[in-house]
């Protein structure tokens, strides 16, 4: 380690740290492929949609596409998509939190935790076409749960207005990958709650409720909100599950964009681009919020 030759090499490399000199141009070549790829396959497609959103059919500049976003069926598509993302983010978030709480602080045995983390990894990745099949076999018209409810409890879901192929059915299906994702994201945050904080609070005479309200929840809130935002984004961009479950008969932004790509159902390509652009704006807002919340939660919860 202390041979002269090594020292010479070290000296040569460490010099820029002591006295920052401009890097030789060839050092930038090392990241060239990555930036070229990002330019071609992330930046260029996004830019192209962005430009397309400001063009009419002949390619001239227009703002009409954005004005057309206020057409009732398009506002409805955004509204349904946002609602379904919100419902599954909050629902999945609460269930996921309760389960993660159980294995971290709730006193469940250690093997439950191992099993839960494996299952969460699997279930959060089990989405799309096969998930839709699974829910058709469960809650479809002749699904197992539908039949059991009908035969054993005399409850006919479909007479009561429930349909798997509607808003609530799709929400139940999304929940299947939403709450396991919550478990995966929130468990480390719950692990970060220090025992000392609880003990300090108890020594000062706090009840369990006071401790949660005044200490644990304020610390956890940014993490919980941040995780729910990720869940929101997860549902917001979902296409395959919704399409194979409803056959496209639900008015989601992703479904409309999909039909637009297949056959110009909007009769205006530019409007399709504007819709896609709108999705990116919403997602970007969400991720900015997530980033801010994460910075806040990292103040307390260091691994």
């Amino acid at each position, binding site marked *: 380690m202390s041979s002269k030759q090594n020292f010479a090499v070290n000296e040569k490399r460490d010099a820029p740290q002591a006295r920052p000199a401009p890097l030789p141009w060839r050092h930038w070549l090392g990241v060239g492929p990555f930036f070229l790829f990002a330019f071609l*396959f992330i930046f260029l497609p996004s830019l192209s949609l962005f430009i397309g959103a400001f063009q009419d059919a002949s390619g001239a500049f227009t703002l009409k596409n954005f004005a057309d976003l206020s057409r009732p069926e398009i506002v409805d598509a955004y509204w349904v998509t946002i609602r379904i993302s919100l419902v599954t983010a909050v629902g999945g978030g609460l269930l996921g939190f309760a389960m993660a709480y159980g294995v971290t602080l709730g006193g469940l045995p250690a093997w439950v935790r191992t099993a839960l983390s494996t299952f969460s990894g*699997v279930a959060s990745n089990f989405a799309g076409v096969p998930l839709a099949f699974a829910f058709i076999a*469960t809650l479809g018209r002749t699904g197992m749960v539908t039949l059991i409810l009908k035969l054993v409890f005399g409850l006919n879901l479909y007479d009561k207005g429930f349909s798997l192929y509607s808003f609530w059915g799709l929400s139940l299906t999304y929940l299947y990958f939403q709450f396991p994702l919550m478990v995966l994201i929130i468990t480390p945050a719950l692990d970060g709650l220090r025992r000392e904080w609880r003990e300090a609070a108890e020594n000062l005479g706090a009840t369990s409720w006071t401790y949660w309200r005044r200490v644990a929840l304020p610390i956890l809130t940014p993490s919980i909100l941040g995780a729910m935002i990720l869940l929101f984004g997860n549902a917001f961009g979902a296409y395959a599950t919704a399409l194979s479950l409803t056959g496209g008969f639900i008015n989601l932004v992703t479904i409309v964009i999909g039909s637009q790509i297949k056959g110009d159902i909007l009769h205006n390509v530019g409007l399709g681009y504007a819709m896609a652009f709108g999705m990116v704006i919403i997602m970007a807002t969400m991720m900015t919020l997530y980033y801010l919340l994460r910075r806040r939660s990292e103040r307390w919860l260091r691994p």
Partner: protein
Amino acid sequence: MAAAMSFLPNLRNLFFPPASSQAKDRGSKRGASWFWMAVGVLYFVLPLVATFDFSLRARKGVLSFLAYERVFKDPAFWKTFIFSLEMAFFTILVSLLLVVPTAYWIRLRLPKLRVIVEFISMLPFVIPAIVLVFGFIRVFSGAPFFLTNTSFGTNVLLVAGYTVLALPYMFRAVDTGLAAIDVRSLTEAAQSLGAGWGTILFKIIFPNLRVAILSGAFLTLATVIGEFTIASFLVGINAFGPYMSLIGQNKTYESSSLAIISFMLTWAFMGLLQFLNRGQASSSLAGAH
């Protein structure tokens, strides 16, 4: 760790006997925990049971594996499955060649670029797959690329799209892996022995990152193999995801058996991932302390 956790409360109870209300509190807390765990497990298991049960009912009156036999006898099943495996393979290859040298290089020479590279690698979270493929078609179907005219072109686009989707996971996995090894010392040691950049990357960095690389690879495999959105617009029925979707439209029992098969695949990939990460977690813990 877990043993210490369950041991601690007992110790505390020994020295500071809890008020009786607190003990009851703890009992009800555990009860609530079991309750929510049961809800979650039921939610997880019921659809699987229902789907499995349904997949066995292809022959009237008896339970049989007929639907599975039919699926496995379908040449299109194997053709599309192998196609998607190939695409997953190329995706993993391309994203590793893209991410590993970049992450290595910014750690070693260009730490200032880190924020930008990290930001770019998170961008796929902002761009939903359907939007990405929309942009792909607009950019690459016309001049000067014309990539959607040939099947080679669409395959290239598919791999590029999957690489974009995998970017956040890959970058994070590789970067965590790099954080656990001393990149600078390894590089200097290699250089002092006369190694060039190629040797350093492929004989030192890649082997040292094998756990991170394998985790990233399995995660990519699990997401790509049944991917539908991008595949359906670029290569259509050639890929496994769109094939499953087509079966779902006209064959009820086969679609259930496909759901079970693809669930078992996901389980296999994620199980392997878990297995790998367990090793990594303990080793990185040992390295940090």
